[in-house]
Each structure stands twice: as C-alpha cells, then as structure tokens.
C-alpha cells in the first residue's frame, strides 16, 4: 500500500515536471525565442536525408492512394484544365500589355512590381505532417537563397510564405493557415484590409476600412491582390482571390469580406518563391 502511494506520488511529480517543461517551451515559442527556430532548423537538417528517403519510397503509394480515393475529382480536374488551356491560349498578348501598364502605374506610385522580382521554382515534397497546421515542404532551401518571410506563389496567385528554411528544403505556410495574415487591396479601388486564413478548404476572412453604410460597397466577384503598402510582408499586386461574400463585422462598424483564394492549396505540385524580403 505504502509502495503504491509512493509510486503514485512519483508519477504525479513526473507529470507535473513534464507539464511545467512544456509550458516553458510554449512560453519561449510565444516570445519568439531564437532557440526554438534554431532547434527546428537543426532537426530539419539532421532528419532531412531520412525524411527524403521516406518521401521517395512513399510517393508511388501516395499517388496510388490519391488515384483510388479521388478518381472522380482527378477526372473532373483534367476536363477543367483542358478547357482552361483552350481559354488561355489566346491571352498572352493581352496579358503582356496589361502587365506593362501595371508596371508603369506601380512605378509612378513608387511600388515594386511583382513581375520584376527574381524567383526560383520549387517542387512540393510533402504536405503538412499534422492535421492542425497548413504547410507544405518544398525542394529548395538556404543554399538556393530562400529566406524566412519570402512570398510563395503559383500560376493562380499567392500560395503562402516561407516560415522555416533548412539547407535543402523549406516549409511554406499556406494562406489558409489560421496564423496566416496578408495586407489586401480590392483591385481598382482604395479599399484595403487584412485577410486571415480560416483553415483547410475555407475562404480567407478580411477586415476592411469600409463602413457598412458606405455608398460603394464591394461586390462579390471583385478581385483582391496584395496591398504592398509601406513595410508590407508581401510585394504589391500578387493576386489573392475573389470576394465571395460581404458581411458586417462583429461590432458592426466595418464590413468583412470572405475571399475565395485563387490558388488551390489542396493540390500543389510546383511553386515559385519570390526572392523578396519584407522590409524589417
């Protein structure tokens, strides 16, 4: 009996110490202690070969599994992509003209044009290893000039930003992650705001500076891009998505926008990292 009580006391002491240690680590992380990022980077570097090997081995299984579980979706996607290619074949000339005009306009306003920023193409190696973070790992790291904070895009628009860099791979936080935030501008207006991720498959939610009784409320379908205002975390004019719906904020003082991202973050294969660092 005495032995059992002693053993119970030791167990409680152990769990108390472990809880205390966890809380200390959480506090360090919330205070952005460099040691946490450094530990993550080191673990990423050390584990990289093993992880890479596992990903290579798992790829055929993963593809087969995806084929089995999403056969219908893959077929629909193929049809949709064929139609889209046909639509896009005649567009390059118009796009080139529009890009030229946009570059001139941004230059007049002293904003950097995204088309002039050097880039590097990366391959998506794996999705998030957790059900609660929305990230992907990509095939290049610090050796290729990638740094924390750099924006990541694909042909459709903004995909996310780099949050961890090791020697030969980087982790990209997707724009659907609840911790992701980006300054936005409604195309062709002076309406700005901040959009935040709401989770996998969900729209972004943006607070704006528009009052609910304003005369010219944004309409569903309006295009949204990065604002690129002074000290922004992203350069201007990266397409983000389209306004899906408009609603009053909780306090009723401004309106919020639900934005459907252009980029499909569920199916990412190749991405482009903009070699652009936000101004500190």
């Amino acid at each position, binding site marked *: 009996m005495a032995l059992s009580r002693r053993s119970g006391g030791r167990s409680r002491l152990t769990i108390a110490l472990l809880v205390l240690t966890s809380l200390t680590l959480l506090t*360090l992380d919330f205070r952005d202690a460099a040691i946490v990022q450094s530990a993550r980077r080191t673990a990423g570097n050390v584990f990289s070969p093993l992880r890479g090997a596992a990903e290579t081995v*798992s790829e055929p299984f993963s593809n087969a599994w995806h084929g089995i579980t999403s056969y219908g979706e893959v077929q629909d996607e193929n049809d949709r992509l064929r139609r889209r290619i046909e639509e896009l074949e005649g567009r390059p000339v118009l796009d080139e003209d529009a890009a030229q005009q946009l570059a001139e306009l941004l230059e007049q306003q002293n904003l950097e044009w995204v088309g002039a920023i050097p880039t590097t193409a990366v391959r998506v190696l794996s999705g998030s290893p957790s059900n*609660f973070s929305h990230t992907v790992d990509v095939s290049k790291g610090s050796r290729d000039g990638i740094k924390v904070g750099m924006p990541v895009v694909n042909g459709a628009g903004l995909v996310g930003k780099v949050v961890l860099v090791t020697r030969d791979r980087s*982790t990209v*936080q997707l724009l659907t992650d609840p911790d992701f935030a980006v300054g936005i501008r409604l195309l062709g207006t002076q309406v700005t705001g901040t959009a935040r991720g709401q989770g996998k498959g969900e729209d972004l939610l943006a607070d704006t500076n528009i009052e609910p009784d304003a005369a010219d409320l944004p309409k569903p379908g309006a295009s949204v891009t990065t604002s690129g205002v002074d000290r922004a975390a992203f350069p201007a004019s990266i397409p983000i998505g389209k306004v899906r719906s408009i609603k009053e904020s909780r306090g009723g003082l401004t309106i919020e926008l639900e934005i459907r991202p252009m980029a499909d973050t569920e199916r990412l294969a190749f991405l482009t990292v903009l070699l652009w660092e936000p101004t500190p």
Partner: protein
Amino acid sequence: MTPPSPLLVAVRTSLILVIALTIQLGFAPGLQVFGVQGDLLLLVAIAGGISAGPDRGAAIGFAAGLAYDLFLQTPFGLSALTYAIVAYLVGGLQDSVLRAAWWIPVLTATAASMLGVILYGVFGTVLGGDLIGLELVRVALIVGLLNTIAAPLVVKAMGWATGSTKHARARAVYR
C-alpha cells in the same frame, strides 16, 4: 526473464520514435482519409502509457510530442504537453489494460487517440487558436480509427522496447 536495462530501454524507445517520426513525416501526409492523417506519434505515446505505466509513459509521450513539435509550425511544446498527459492518463489504467483481452489495449488506443486530438484542440484554443468545433470532432474520429489499425503493432513494439511483456508486468504489479 530479466527486464532490459534502462539504457537498453532508452535505445529501443528512441529507435521506435525515429521510425514513427519518419513514417509520420514521410508517409502519413500522402495517405490521408477524408483529408485527415493518422497520428503515429500520439499512438507511440499511448502505447508507452499502456506498456510502461504513467511514470515512464508520460516521459515517452513527452519525448514523442517534442520530436513531433520540431517539425510542425504549431506552438512548440503543444504536442509534448498533450501527449505526456494522454500517456499519463492511459498509464493510470495500466493494470486493468494489461491483464485483459488483446482487444482492450487496442480499444484503449482508439479512445485515447480521440481524447488526444480533442485535448490538443482545447489546449490549442487556450493558446489563441480556433480549433474547437465540429471539424475537431471529425478529425478526432478519423485519427481514432486510423490509429486503431496501427495500434496492435505499435503496442507490441512499445512492449518490446520497454520490456513490458505480460509476464514481467504481472511481476511488477506484485513486487
């Protein structure tokens, strides 16, 4: 049969942790069911509790969670906190789990996996996230089912690592 030395237990447990981490990072993201993947590190923590009791189980859970946290962009220490508590609670059930039918540890692993996901969501929400909702329940159910598939193997592996065969555990109870 003499129980393995603490050093051997540490080496074997570390080996299982590395294998579980490799599978979780390299395989699990590509093998999702309805957009949800199994949580092998949580299962290792639970199996640690089943095999080694609340004391060592909590330490194994903490180590598993900490290793996982190194590769996630969620708050650092959140998995370690959750897995240590879940392993501790499961370890508390140790005696009844140990001497019961084979399916009891498996069922325990299923329930504890769901509990682990829910606890993670609750702690994550306390820390500023917005994880509580129907989606959390959906994730917990699927993780519970996926972990059930791997539970017999992982419980057996942790039994080997900690030297907690049924016979040895029975002796430990009467010691």
